[in-house]
C-alpha cells in the first residue's frame, strides 16, 4: 500500500485554481521531491497532504481516506516542517519539541512520561541535548531548523513533509539538514515528501522528483530523466546547463 495516494486533486482559492488535477503516488520509505517554479503549487500540495486545507479529488494516507480522517488522526500520520515556521521566541527548545506530541494527547491532557521520553529521544537524535533549555529566539538558522525537525520527529508520524527545508541555510547547513533527513528516513523508516527550490540539491537527494507548473504535474521520474536543460529553461525561464545530472545556472555572454 502506498504511503500517499493522490487521485486528481484540485485546490481552488479565491476563484483561482492553484492545484489542477494532480495525481501522485509515494511508496513507503520513499523520498519524493516536488519541484517547480515559484507559485507552481508546491506548498499547496504539501498543505493538502498535511490536511490543513480543503481540496477536491481523492487523497489517502496509508490507505485511509484523508477527508474522513479527524485532525488529530491526520497529524499522527503526517508531520510538517514549514518553510517559515512561526517561532515563539521565548519558548525553550525542549518545550517546542514537546509540542510535537499534541496529536498523541487527548485534547485537555498534559504530556505524560511517554511523551517526555519521545521528546527527549528526538532531542538526542537531532543533537539538540545541549540546546534543550535555550530559547528559540536565541538560536541560529541551522539550530532552529533542527529544532523544527525535532518537533516533527517527536510527532512520530510515518510521513514527513518538508517545505523548502534549505531556504534560509548556508551551503554547509543545507547539506547537513538533508543528510540528517535522509538518515532519519532510513533509520526510522520515514516517507519523505519535500518541496524543493534548489534543483542542484534536489537532484542529489531523494529517489524521485515530481516537476509541477501552474498546478499540474509536468514530468516525474528520476532527477536525471526529469531535469533536462530544455525543460528547466522553459519552466523557470532560466539559462542552465546540466552537468552529470546536476543543474548549473549559467550566465549568457
Amino acid at each position: 500500500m502506498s504511503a500517499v495516494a493522490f487521485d486528481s486533486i484540485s485546490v481552488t482559492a479565491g476563484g483561482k485554481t492553484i492545484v489542477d488535477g494532480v495525481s501522485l503516488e509515494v511508496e513507503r520509505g520513499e523520498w519524493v521531491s516536488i519541484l517547480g517554479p515559484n507559485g507552481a503549487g508546491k506548498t499547496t500540495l504539501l498543505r493538502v497532504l498535511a490536511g490543513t486545507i480543503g481540496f477536491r479529488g481523492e487523497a489517502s494516507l496509508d490507505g485511509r481516506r484523508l477527508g474522513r480522517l479527524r485532525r488529530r488522526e491526520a497529524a499522527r500520520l503526517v508531520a510538517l516542517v514549514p518553510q517559515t515556521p512561526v517561532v515563539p521566541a521565548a519558548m525553550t527548545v525542549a518545550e517546542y519539541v514537546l509540542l510535537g506530541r499534541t496529536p498523541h494527547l487527548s485534547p485537555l491532557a498534559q504530556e505524560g512520561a511517554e511523551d517526555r521520553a519521545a521528546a527527549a529521544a528526538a532531542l538526542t537524535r537531532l543533537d539538540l541535548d545541549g540546546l534543550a533549555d535555550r530559547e528559540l529566539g536565541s538560536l541560529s538558522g541551522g539550530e532552529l531548523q533542527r529544532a523544527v525537525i525535532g518537533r516533527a520527529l517527536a510527532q512520530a508520524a510515518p510521513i514527513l513533509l518538508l517545505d523548502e527545508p534549505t531556504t534560509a541555510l548556508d551551503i554547509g547547513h543545507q547539506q547537513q539538514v538533508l543528510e540528517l533527513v535522509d538518515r532519519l528516513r532510513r533509520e526510522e523508516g520515514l516517507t519523505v515528501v519535500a518541496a524543493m527550490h534548489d534543483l542542484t540539491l534536489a537532484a542529489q537527494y531523494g529517489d524521485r522528483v515530481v516537476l509541477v507548473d501552474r498546478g499540474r504535474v509536468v514530468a516525474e521520474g528520476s532527477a536525471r530523466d526529469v531535469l533536462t536543460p530544455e525543460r528547466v529553461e522553459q519552466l523557470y525561464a532560466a539559462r542552465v546547463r546540466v552537468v552529470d545530472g546536476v543543474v548549473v545556472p549559467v550566465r549568457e555572454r
Partner: protein
Amino acid sequence: MNAAREHGFPAVAAPRVGVPWTLVALAALLGAVLVGLLVGPVPIGVGEIARSTLARVPFLSVATPLDAAKEAIVWELRFPRVVLGALVGGMLALSGASYQGVFRNPLADPYLLGVAAGAGFGATLVIAYGPPGVDGFILPLASFAGGVAAVFAAYLIGRSVGGGRTTATLILAGVTVAAFLTAAQTFVQQQNSDTLNEVYAWLLGGLTTAGWSDVLTVLPYVAVSAAVLLLHRRTLDVLAVGDEEARSLGLDVTRVRLLLVAAATLGTAAAVAVSGLIGFVGIVVPHLVRLVVSSSYRVILPLSVVVGAAFLVLADVLARTILSPAELPIGVVTAFVGAPFFALVLRTTRSSA
C-alpha cells in the same frame, strides 16, 4: 534531572507553575485579602478577625470578640467586597491572558472584541431610560447582555469576511463593533445629561455596591469560564506556533478559538456586569507573570488568576481609602498603576525583540 541525564537523554519537562511561585502567589493573595479585611474607617484587628472566623467554624467553641455592628462590617461589607474584587480581578486577568494567546497579540485585553463597548451601551440605556430604583437588578443584566451581544456580532462579521480562519479580520470586526456601540453609547449619554454622573461612574468601574448577592451573581459564570480556559492552557501553547502549524499538529484551530473566545467573553461580561469597566488588569497582570516567571500559558493562566485577584483587591483598598470617605473609581487606580507599567512592558518587549 541527573537521573535522566545518566540514561543518556536530556530531561524534558512540560512547563508548569513550580511550588515556589505557587506559594508566592498564594501568599500575595492571602496578604491582599487580609489588608482588604483590615483596612477601613472602623479599626478591627487581625486577632479579632481571626477569632471571629474561628467562631464561624461549626463544632469549635470559640466566641467572636466583635459586637454585632463589627461582625456585620467584616462579614457583610468588607468580606463580600474582597471576594468580589478577587473574582473580578482573577477573571479579567485570566481572560486577558487567554485573549493574548488566542490572538497571538501581546496587546490584546479582555475588551478587544467589544465586550466593554457593548456592556457600556447596555448599562447606559438602563441608567438613562430605566425606571429609577431597579438599577441594582437590571443594570448587571443589561451590561452582560450588551457585552455578549457585541462580541457575538463581531464574531459573525469577522466570520462573514474571513471565514473565521484569520484572527486579523476578527480583531478588525471587534474594533468596528466597538466603535459603533461607543458612538451609540455616547449619543444616549449626551441626550440624557441628568444621568451623566451615574453613567460616568459606572464606566470607570467600582465594587461599591458589592454584597453577597453580587458575588453569587457572577460566581457561576466565572467558575465555568475559568474552568474552560484553565483546562485549555496547553492548547494556548500550541496556538503560539500559528494557525497553520497548530492545525498540522492536530488542533481544530477554528473550533478551539471559538470556544476560548466564548468562555473569556462570558466571564468578562459577568465581571463587567457587577463592577463596570475596570481597565488594565487584563493586560498588566499576564505581562507581569510573563516577564517574571515564564512565557508558557501553562504558567501564565493559573498565576494570572491569583495575581489578578490580589491586584484588584489591593487596588480596591486604595480606591476606598485615598479620598475616604469618598471613593475613587477603581478603574482610575488600576490605570494609574497600569499605565506606567504598560510603558515599561512596551520598552522591555521592544528591546528584546
